[in-house]
């Protein structure tokens, strides 16, 4: 199981136009050790969920403190961390960078399989495993929202990372596709960290973090976390 460790991790951003380059803290300091198979993160818009998730594969590096994945520092070993930690965005169309799903899966596999024949065979296996082979040669623009999201997941999981991080993956999906995605996530051997506004999905976890104004204000059992989040939302 992948271990993620955050020690006093803080992210600050410069405040544009401020005298003396003032900064604003958007997350932290956060101290966390994540070893559970399923972790969900809930919180209001702009609370710091996405920043927290981006810390996990080095997309955002901490301004102070450290973030490590299986003892690899995300600043010093960013490339190796990204091979272990896959990241799926809310909008799959920005994630699918090739014209078709098959080509995108092959792109993911370029560094693992230098031979074109091997790469094609490996991509075919990935597409079969996710039940996406019939859609593999369609333009990504012709896929439905649910199909795009599944394709985006197949693309990032093709390299068999140890941890999958998803940033609000159900926001653009209808209920049927949300259930399909949830079932797929349940079946994955990888550790999964999901930020979500879907409280049903949030309950499908071993541990839930509630983020508010850049701080982890609750860390524990999912049902209690959801109650805490609802109380916070109602209070504002």
């Amino acid at each position: 199981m992948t271990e993620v460790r955050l020690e006093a991790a803080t992210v600050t951003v410069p405040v544009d136009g401020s005298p003396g380059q003032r900064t604003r803290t958007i997350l932290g300091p956060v101290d966390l050790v994540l070893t559970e198979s399923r972790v969900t993160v809930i919180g209001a818009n702009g609370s710091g969920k996405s920043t927290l998730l981006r810390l996990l594969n080095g997309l955002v590096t901490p301004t102070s403190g450290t973030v490590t994945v299986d003892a690899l520092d995300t600043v010093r070993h960013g490339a190796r961390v990204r091979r272990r930690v896959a990241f799926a965005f809310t909008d799959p169309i920005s994630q699918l960078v090739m014209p078709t799903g098959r080509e995108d899966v092959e792109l993911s596999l370029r560094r693992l399989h230098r031979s074109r024949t091997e790469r094609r065979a490996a991509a075919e296996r990935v597409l079969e495993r996710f039940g996406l082979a019939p859609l593999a040669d369609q333009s990504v623009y012709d896929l439905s929202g649910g199909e795009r999201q599944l394709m985006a997941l197949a693309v990032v999981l093709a390299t068999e990372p140890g941890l999958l991080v998803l940033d609000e993956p159900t926001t653009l999906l209808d209920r049927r596709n949300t259930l399909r995605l949830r079932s797929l996530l349940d079946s994955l051997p990888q550790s999964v960290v999901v930020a979500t506004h879907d409280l049903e999905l949030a309950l499908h976890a071993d541990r839930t973090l509630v983020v508010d104004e850049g701080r982890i204000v609750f860390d524990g059992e999912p049902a209690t976390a959801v109650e805490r989040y609802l109380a916070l939302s109602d209070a504002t």
Partner: protein
Amino acid sequence: MNGPGLFTAHVPGTSVVHRMPLWLKLVGVLVVGATPWFAQSVWPLAVTTVVLVGVVLAARLPARRLVRSMRGLLPVLVVLLAFQWWSRDLAYAVRVVLGIVNAFVAAGILTATTPVTDLLDGVVRAARPLRRVVDPEVVALTLGVVVRSVPWVAGSFSSVRESARARGLDRNPRAVVVPTVVHVVAFARSTGEALAARGLTDPADDDAPGPDGPGASSRSAG
């Protein structure tokens, strides 16, 4: 979003055009692109157009894709034809327009009959002598992203124009151009972030498989 044009996606097939080696297709595109420089009359260009239509038919590419691609280009061609006719003469204007149409169709045939991954492999091979200056994989990836982004930008322009029309601002160029530029910049940023998240922009020399190499963590996962 616009429907697929010739440049949008690879059209799988087993035709002789699909099976042609990449270098031959690239030479074909270069020859077609260079024809207007050497043609002294409109006839060589017209013959090239007929040959290209034959290639589209031989490759069994959907005609509606070709029409859709050309429809987007049509306003530009009409303006160009009128300008060249006014500034030179009709024969010259037709040569210029046919040259552009031929180059556009030839490039479209290349992208429609060649998987982008094959194009990437070709670019990586071609850029290998320059690897001390630039990472061939990055050059290839850039090309792939450009091919993928063309229909997105066209679709974004179309959506913005519809929004402007709904607000009665369709005659105001700023109401169309500014939001399109903003959309394109946002798209470029999110695409860049997605590429970085997948490690596709990480240096190639940092990816030797070892104890921490690809797939290592998945062996311990679950």
